[in-house]
């Protein structure tokens, strides 16, 4: 079989079973078995049949399918072990390992079905449509704005993709913490005009928060939005709006 043929016969796994839970639910339903009393050996055999079939069909098997196969095998082996008479009462049915996630998964399937059955906007029901005239102007009297956080990062990512690599910069959770602290310090300065160095560190508890505050002060000094002054006699360091 050449490359072309292989591509033709490749079936998206998502078209058949979304994941191992999906396949398991299918088998439970097909065999009409009670999820609280699953015949593990039977279900596992059928599960493995499907795995083999998917291999034959040249479907890329997600690792999750094999993890589930291992879990089923493990449960099956535990069920074959003789039960210790004394421990019997405390010993949990090994199948519980799979029953609980299955239970939750089934519940969510029902929830998804319920959502699907609702009158979905732009599919079952429609509201008035304003075509291209819908673009709202920037200038609005009361200055309210309606945007989502996702739109913001999406806009940022598009810019990043546009600019040349040498202008790339890292935005990480850490750098954002520093920005957040800068914003807080700017708030303080807006209110009070100046603040002592100690005040800024007063409430800090963890080492990383100390570092974040220090980095924030350094960055603000670097772009010169603050001045740092030390009193000659008292030695108190004060930060001012530049």
């Amino acid at each position, binding site marked *: 079989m050449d490359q072309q043929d292989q591509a033709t016969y490749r079936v998206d796994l998502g078209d058949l079973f979304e994941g191992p839970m999906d396949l398991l639910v299918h088998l439970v339903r097909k065999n009409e078995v009670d999820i609280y009393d699953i015949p593990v050996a039977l279900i596992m055999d059928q599960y493995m049949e499907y795995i083999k079939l998917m291999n034959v069909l040249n479907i890329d098997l997600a690792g999750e399918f094999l993890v589930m196969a291992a879990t089923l095998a493990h449960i099956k082996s535990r069920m074959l072990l003789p039960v210790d008479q004394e421990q019997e009462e405390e010993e949990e049915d090994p199948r519980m390992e799979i029953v609980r996630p299955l239970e939750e998964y089934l519940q969510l*399937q029902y929830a998804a079905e319920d959502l699907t059955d609702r009158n979905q906007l732009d599919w079952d029901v429609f509201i008035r449509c304003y075509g291209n005239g819908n673009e709202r102007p920037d200038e609005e009297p009361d200055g309210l704005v309606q945007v989502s956080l996702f739109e913001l990062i999406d806009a940022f990512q598009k810019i990043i993709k546009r600019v040349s690599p040498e202008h790339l910069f890292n935005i990480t959770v850490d750098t954002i913490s520093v920005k957040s602290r800068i914003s807080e310090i700017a708030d303080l300065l807006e209110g009070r005009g100046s603040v002592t160095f100690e005040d800024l560190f007063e409430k800090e508890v963890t080492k990383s928060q100390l570092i974040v505050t220090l980095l924030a002060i350094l960055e603000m000094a670097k772009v010169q939005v603050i001045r740092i002054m030390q009193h000659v006699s008292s030695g108190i360091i004060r930060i001012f709006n530049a």
Partner: protein
Amino acid sequence: MHNLKAIIESLLFASDTPLTVDKIKAILEVKDRNAVQDALKSLAEDCDSQERGFFLREVAGGYQLRTRPEYRQWVRRMKQSRPARLSRAAMETLAIIAYKQPVLRTDVEHLRGVDSGGILRTLLEKGIIRVLGRKDLPGRPMVYGTTKRFLEVFDMKDLSDLPTLKDLEELGEAWPNDST
């Protein structure tokens, strides 16, 4: 105010978002909340009894006129809308977020048993879910929840319109061999 009902109808007709009673009161400068509510009720009855092409629906905390679902095939044909429906996988993911919010990506994936990053991104792009914040865990993972848009799209007054999981389970058990 003369003909409050007709004026409210014109507002609802021209609005692209659901209008709350408070918003209507503010626009019309009426003090009487009951008068607005009565007019809305009467309008809803008119839409039904006169068999109009649309009906008044309470959704996402406000009121909105929407075409009747019975006529979906014709409106759809006019709009030439491609299937804008969410896939089964997206519905499943959305159900998890709706019921378990605030929820982490790992929680979603644990329940579904498969990678769900792409679906989360799609739902974010559609504005149906949003980032609520971050959780104080290593890597500060993002926490997800549903939006007001979710209520609008899925025809709900508020999140309490969602049936409980227990109710759903009982309903589900009525058709145990419902094929997937």
